[in-house]
């Protein structure tokens, strides 16, 4: 660590004004503050000093994502082995298969996103902002494992430029950048983002795994959406894994089902949620009310279940465990930039995220993944909710002041 510090200090002069590498000042700055605590402090006025700067926040979010990421790797391998018809599941081979499957996607998302951030930071003569640290890891986690790399690159570039940079960079975006990336992919390349061909990796990775031809396996939610009205008796029984065995609620909770890379395991998401809630990074109000909203809407849908909408036969537990719901409720909805600021607003916002997610998923068979659209919709409504909460508070206090006169 000392040697690294020495190296960075030695390199500093050439990055300062007039130095020959001045053009890369923001890159240097970014790496320096990433590795070491910045020794610049505020010089005037009274400020609250807290070690919790946005870099720390981002790093804790990444730590919270690691269980999902590791499980995603295992599951990618597991689904592949299952699809190949294997009986034994060698742990390390599964892990390395998943690792090799996700690595290029991670690299592409980071290179494209950070590249744009570096260029913009340099252009505006600002510091590099760390917002992309989390976005870059989220993007591969919410996309199907088979998403082509160039699509991830295009979508990442689109959403970093049009959702973040044009609004002024990290902290000014009105929508969640990672979710817009997915929404862009979903609407621009629907064939690559849904259906039954994309959720299980089929190729060989550096000699690991086998070739699988003609593999089809939709996610459980996708199966429900396409199974139609015929099996009204028990749609849950109609959900099968690749091998054709029915999927139990326990499997859905553990996450050994096909789905987007990082969001299948509700268990790992809950571990991440505990980290985020314990450190106070995610708002427990939003997370809790999102799950409550989802549960309420799932109950209502299940209560008046009709064969027209097969997903309405899913039980509350299945609704909360399947698809991206839990992932969105824990990692997407409480994003401090795009959610509500007021405490009352957070309850309303979270609750509506849950309700809308299940509503879209159940009553629109074209969009089995309602959580993404729900969070984006509520991102747009968050300022309005805040405004109403603040105005209501102002009115209440005015009335109280009048009454006291």
């Amino acid at each position, binding site marked *: 660590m000392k040697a690294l510090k020495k190296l960075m200090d030695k390199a500093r002069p050439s990055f300062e004004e007039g130095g020959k590498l001045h053009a890369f000042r923001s890159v240097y700055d970014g790496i320096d503050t990433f590795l070491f605590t910045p020794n610049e402090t505020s010089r005037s006025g009274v400020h609250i000093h807290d070690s919790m700067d946005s870099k720390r926040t981002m790093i804790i979010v990444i730590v919270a994502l690691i269980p999902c990421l590791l499980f995603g790797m295992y599951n990618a391998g597991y689904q592949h082995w299952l699809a190949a018809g294997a009986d034994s599941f060698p742990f390390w081979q599964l892990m390395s298969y998943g690792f090799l499957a996700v690595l290029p996607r991670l690299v592409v998302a980071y290179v494209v996103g950070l590249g744009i951030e570096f260029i913009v930071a340099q252009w505006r003569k600002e510091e590099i902002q760390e917002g992309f640290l989390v976005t870059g890891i989220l993007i591969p986690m919410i996309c199907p494992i088979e998403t082509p790399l*160039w699509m991830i690159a295009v979508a990442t570039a689109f959403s970093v430029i049009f959702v973040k940079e044009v609004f002024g960079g990290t902290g000014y975006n009105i929508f969640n950048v990672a979710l817009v990336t997915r929404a862009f992919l979903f*609407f*621009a390349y629907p064939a*690559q983002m849904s259906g039954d061909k994309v959720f299980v990796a089929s190729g060989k990775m550096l000699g690991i795994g086998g070739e699988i031809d003609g593999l089809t396996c939709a996610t459980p939610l996708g199966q429900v959406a396409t199974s139609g009205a015929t099996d009204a008796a028990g749609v849950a029984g109609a959900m099968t894994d690749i091998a054709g065995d029915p999927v139990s609620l326990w499997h859905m909770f553990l996450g050994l089902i096909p789905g987007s890379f990082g969001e299948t395991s509700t268990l790992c998401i809950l571990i991440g949620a505990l980290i985020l809630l314990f450190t106070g990074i995610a708002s427990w109000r939003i997370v809790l009310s999102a799950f409550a909203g989802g549960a309420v809407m799932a109950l209502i849908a299940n209560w008046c279940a009709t064969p027209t909408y097969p997903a309405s036969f899913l039980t509350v537990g299945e609704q909360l465990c399947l698809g991206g719901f839990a992932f969105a409720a824990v990692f997407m909805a409480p994003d401090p930039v795009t959610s509500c600021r007021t405490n009352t607003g957070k309850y309303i916002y979270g609750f509506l995220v849950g309700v809308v997610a299940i509503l879209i998923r159940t009553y629109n068979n074209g969009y089995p993944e309602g959580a993404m659209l729900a969070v984006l919709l509520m991102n747009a409504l968050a300022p309005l909710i805040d405004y109403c909460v603040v105005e209501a508070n102002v009115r209440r206090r005015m009335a109280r002041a009048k009454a006291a006169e």
Partner: protein
Amino acid sequence: MADKISNKQIFFNPFSKDNPVIVQVLGICSCLAVTAKLEPALVMGISVIAVLAFSNVIISLIRNTIPTNIRIIVQLVVVAALVIVVNQLLLAYAYDVSKQLSVFIGLIITNCILMGRLEAFAMGNKPWPSFLDGVGNGIGYAIILIIVGFFRELLGSGTLMGFQIIPQCFYEAGYVNNGLMILPPMALIVVACIIWAHRAWNKDLQEK
């Protein structure tokens, strides 16, 4: 005021500096609706040029006899008559495109650019400058429509005017058309990009 601008400026200003779509932000609705393909965008642009030029001339000719109280009604009648003529011509000679444009030819009547030019220019100017103003603004509108239509058709369908542009080997290598380009949101973003580039180019248009 009007006398100070030369005919040349009247004609050329709407192309860029005073563009009805990207500077005055009028006619956005039809810009989203008809630009998924280049061909309808082109036909729509030509139709607007024709309607705008002739309605400007007609209103300008009768501008001194129109009672002020009912001038909007008179303008609407003139525009509606011209739109019907254009629509009939399209039905007769370009039936397929007319089907694609569906109601949007009829909706030229409600296009803000027309009412704006009639009110702001033709009501106070002689026929020849009014004609130039109409053609200029129509072309300004058509340029934007064509640019938007070009990018949306090229990236959304891989074709231009119906001919395949993106080579087949691209598709075989894994390239896929961008479905979002066909959807209206992308038209807004393409228009926004044009405005972005245009403002970056013309510094005096940038808001403080």
